[in-house]
């Protein structure tokens, strides 16, 4: 209750220097907005990539001890071993590759078999899934890839060192897939010089409950591969971890700048009213109460900054979501851990920024401060 009444004092001081308060608020707000945007983009990208892998599958099989799936090689023998397991209903190999096209240095390539379920699930704009892999030298494009390559069915496109004919165009929900180029697995293997290997094998089990059995048996028989349940894979995959950490690190940097803004605002606020704070001490405020007053002020800044940052971050995401280049990659969903993390960071930052000013305020000597009349 005492603290609540401090709020009047804190608000009064903030109102007195609106521009200054606004700068503190803006610092926090930019931190919040940057963090929300970065996390949304990264989580969106990760989610997208996860879904490529998880489509119609329970387990992923890949080469043991590789740092990134792009470097993973699963041999035909290993693929055959997977398919031979009695627990397995379906197994679909997939080869990832990166090629460059004119003006587009990074285009994701997917080598898949004609039987791959994602072909049947896609919405075909031209051509049909039955056509996939029927004719040599034919590739199929996600609708966004078709857009940026400016290619339609029947056109010839240059990809990497090769020329291909577009056999069909389809739209998928997944941003990576929709911006990707699909080749029959055999052609992809030749194109990328990967012999007969695949990057991963997506496995659907007859009985999802028998996953542990499948994993143990497969890994015993084929020590060169490992099988991970989808969820487990997402958690342990190094590249995802790096992305997560990078996103939080970049966001935190934005917050450090916000914290400096708060520190600056609060320092000015304290230095600008030494006398007033001295009077509060004379009126019976303890050193702690004066410090609390300064901290309360910074918490008000943090709250306002959070509100403004949420609006700003929402606006940034809305704009990003409309950018054609990012369509499908963004996850505008705000998960509870992210929200909690952003809120906590904002308050911790504001408090950290106000720590020195509060300490300084608590050490004001009333007699000295009031001497110059």
């Amino acid at each position: 209750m005492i603290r609540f009444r401090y709020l009047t004092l804190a608000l009064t001081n903030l109102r007195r220097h609106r521009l200054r308060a606004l700068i503190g608020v803006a610092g926090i707000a930019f931190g919040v907005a940057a963090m929300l945007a970065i996390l949304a983009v990264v989580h969106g990208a990760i989610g997208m990539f996860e879904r490529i892998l998880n489509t119609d599958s329970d387990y992923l099989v890949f080469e043991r001890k590789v740092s990134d799936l792009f470097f993973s090689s699963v041999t035909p023998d290993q693929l055959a071993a997977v398919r031979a397991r009695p627990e397995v209903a379906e197994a679909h190999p997939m080869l990832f590759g990166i090629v460059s096209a004119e003006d587009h240095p990074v285009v994701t390539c997917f080598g898949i078999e004609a039987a791959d379920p994602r072909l049947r699930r896609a919405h075909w704009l031209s051509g049909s899934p039955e056509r996939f892999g029927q004719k040599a030298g034919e590739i199929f494009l996600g609708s966004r890839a078709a857009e940026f390559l400016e290619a339609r069915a029947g056109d010839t496109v240059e990809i990497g060192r090769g020329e291909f004919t577009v056999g069909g165009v389809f739209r998928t929900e997944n941003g990576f897939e929709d911006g990707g180029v699909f080749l029959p697995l055999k052609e992809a293997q030749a194109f990328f010089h990967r012999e007969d290997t695949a990057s991963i094998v997506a496995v659907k089990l007859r009985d999802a409950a028998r996953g542990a059995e499948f994993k143990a048996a497969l890994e015993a028989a084929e020590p060169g591969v490992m099988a991970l349940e989808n969820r487990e894979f997402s958690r342990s995959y190094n590249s995802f971890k790096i992305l997560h950490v990078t996103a939080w690190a970049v966001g935190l940097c934005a917050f450090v700048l916000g914290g400096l803004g708060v520190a600056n605002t609060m320092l000015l606020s304290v230095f600008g009213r030494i006398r007033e704070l001295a009077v509060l001490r004379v009126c019976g405020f303890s050193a702690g109460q004066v410090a609390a007053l300064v901290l309360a002020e910074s918490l008000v800044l943090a709250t306002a900054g959070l509100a403004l940052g949420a609006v700003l971050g929402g606006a940034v995401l809305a704009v990003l979501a409309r950018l054609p280049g990012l369509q499908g990659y963004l996850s505008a969903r705000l998960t509870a851990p992210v929200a909690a993390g952003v809120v906590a960071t904002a308050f911790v930052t504001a408090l950290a920024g106000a720590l020195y000013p509060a300490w300084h305020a608590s050490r004001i000597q009333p007699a000295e401060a009031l001497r110059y009349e």
Partner: protein
Amino acid sequence: MNNPLAPADGRGAPLAVARDVWKSYDRGRVEVLRGASLTVRAGELVALWGSSGSGKSTLLHLLGGLDTPDRGELQVCGLDPREERARLELRRRHLGFVFQLHNLVPDLTVEENIRLPALALGAGPAEMAARVRVLADRVGLADRLRHRAQDLSGGERQRVAICRALMNSPRLLLADEPTGSLDEATGENVFALLRELARAERAAVLLCTHERRFAEACDRLLRVRAGRVEEV
């Protein structure tokens, strides 16, 4: 010389006592107090009179626990203002301060300014409001409670400052040239209100002033000269 330990000779109990207090500034280069002693008893209005720079404010600050003496003993309301913990207690419950400049928070209202000492104590809002009304009424500011301090005249601000000093019903008011920045008529008025209100509230007052007319209007007159206090 005034002996603070002399028997109470029928007057009130000693409220504030300074005995052989020394205080210098700038590492001893400016010796302000050299063995100053005084006693203020409950309920009395005592003037601390002396020329500018004689050390009146210094003595007041020492008694109020705003500064620490080099040597000598101090006792205020049974507490030692040299101790940090006692200081907070003194400021919160036993002392009220009025300065030459009102030192109000300019953009808080009159009411909010008067409340500050009660806020430090964590008093309830209803209790505070009632007390504020009583005090403001006494100094004729009851109809200005919602006005901002910055919109008041100098005399009105000083009246608010007096109310604020009395908010927690202190037993001793330390007033440092409260009329120092006011014109003559306003100064008279503020002094009269201070005396009346302190009497009504049964608070003793130690009033620093360099003006003889105010000093002589007090119950007792102490003169600060050459770092010591002498009864006039």
